[in-house]
């Protein structure tokens, strides 16, 4: 997430829409991408992004700068994304076969860059959908957004050892899933 000055945050808190747009521009990529990776659906990620920024706009007046603004945004985003992912998991069609989830198109050597990006994208989508939302949020914050264990612990309000154990279990499962996948090594 890009840096946001305290002055901009204060102006946004006072109702300045342009200042709030600056906050949006700095944070929207993080919010949208975390939501998308945790939930796995673009439409739901859009909805979560909207809700996150409306929540921020609503609660910005009460932000006292006692904690990091970034951590606050991370927390709101991850909580909303996990809630959405859990709701989705309950309503998801249970008949979707495991093999369908793992299906990734085979590619040959010398592929275009955009095809390769899409290929990695598909792998990530499939891998992440195989672990629970709590583990998924830890993996996304660490592997995609690059947060440290301490930052993840603060964001999720959990012990740092819980972060460690969630990552370990998630990766054990992801590794087993990767071994089952029919495509070759990346």
């Amino acid at each position, binding site marked *: 997430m890009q840096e946001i000055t305290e002055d901009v945050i204060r102006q946004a808190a006072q109702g300045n*829409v342009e200042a709030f747009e600056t906050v949006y521009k700095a944070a929207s*990529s993080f919010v*949208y991408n975390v939501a998308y990776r945790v939930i796995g659906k673009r439409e739901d990620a859009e909805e979560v992004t909207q809700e996150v920024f409306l929540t921020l706009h609503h609660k910005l007046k009460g932000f006292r700068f006692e904690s990091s603004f970034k951590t606050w945004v991370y927390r709101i985003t991850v909580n909303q994304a996990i809630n959405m992912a859990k709701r989705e998991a309950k309503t998801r069609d249970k008949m979707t076969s495991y093999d369908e989830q793992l299906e990734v198109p085979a590619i040959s050597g010398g592929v275009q860059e955009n095809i390769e990006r899409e290929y990695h994208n598909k792998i990530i989508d499939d891998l992440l959908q195989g672990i629970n939302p709590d583990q998924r949020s830890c993996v996304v914050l660490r*592997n995609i957004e690059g947060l440290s264990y301490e930052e993840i612990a603060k964001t999720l309000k959990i012990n740092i050892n819980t972060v460690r154990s969630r*990552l370990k279990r998630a*990766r*054990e499962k992801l590794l087993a899933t990767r071994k089952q996948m029919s495509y070759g*090594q990346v």
Partner: protein
Amino acid sequence: MDKCKKFRDLILTDYIDAQLDGVSKAQVQEHLHQCATCQAFFLEVKNKLIVPFEKAPHQPVPTHLWGIIEERIRQGHSRVSVVDFIRGWIEGITFPRLVPALASLIMVVFIGSTVFVNQQVKQAQDWEGGTYLAYILSSTGVSVPVNNHDLGTPIEQYFL
């Protein structure tokens, strides 16, 4: 093997995520130089779990999203304006300039309704009183006319 298990746990988390301090990191690296199985495990974790995430592109934020959020923020403000409007309207009723006019209107309505109700009650009493008296007198056999126009008809004279 227990030693390898311990190192594999570190490889799967703190080592691969660069969260170890210098001493612990050196210990893991020394073990990796000595143990081919753990070395293979490290490469597997790196290639299958870390690299795909590093290569996965960040998704571009849909361009229309800010417009929707901005609109929803403005709608939120307009909802507040409606509430303010209703509150202002209620406050306007009690505004001092409107009090005399409102009091006059209430007085006119009160007086008018009082006159109308009195007339209705009087009419009802006149009718009910005359009918009741005629009934009492007829039951006692005394014939006293309630109204003069009740006497003098042939049929009344026949019975009396």
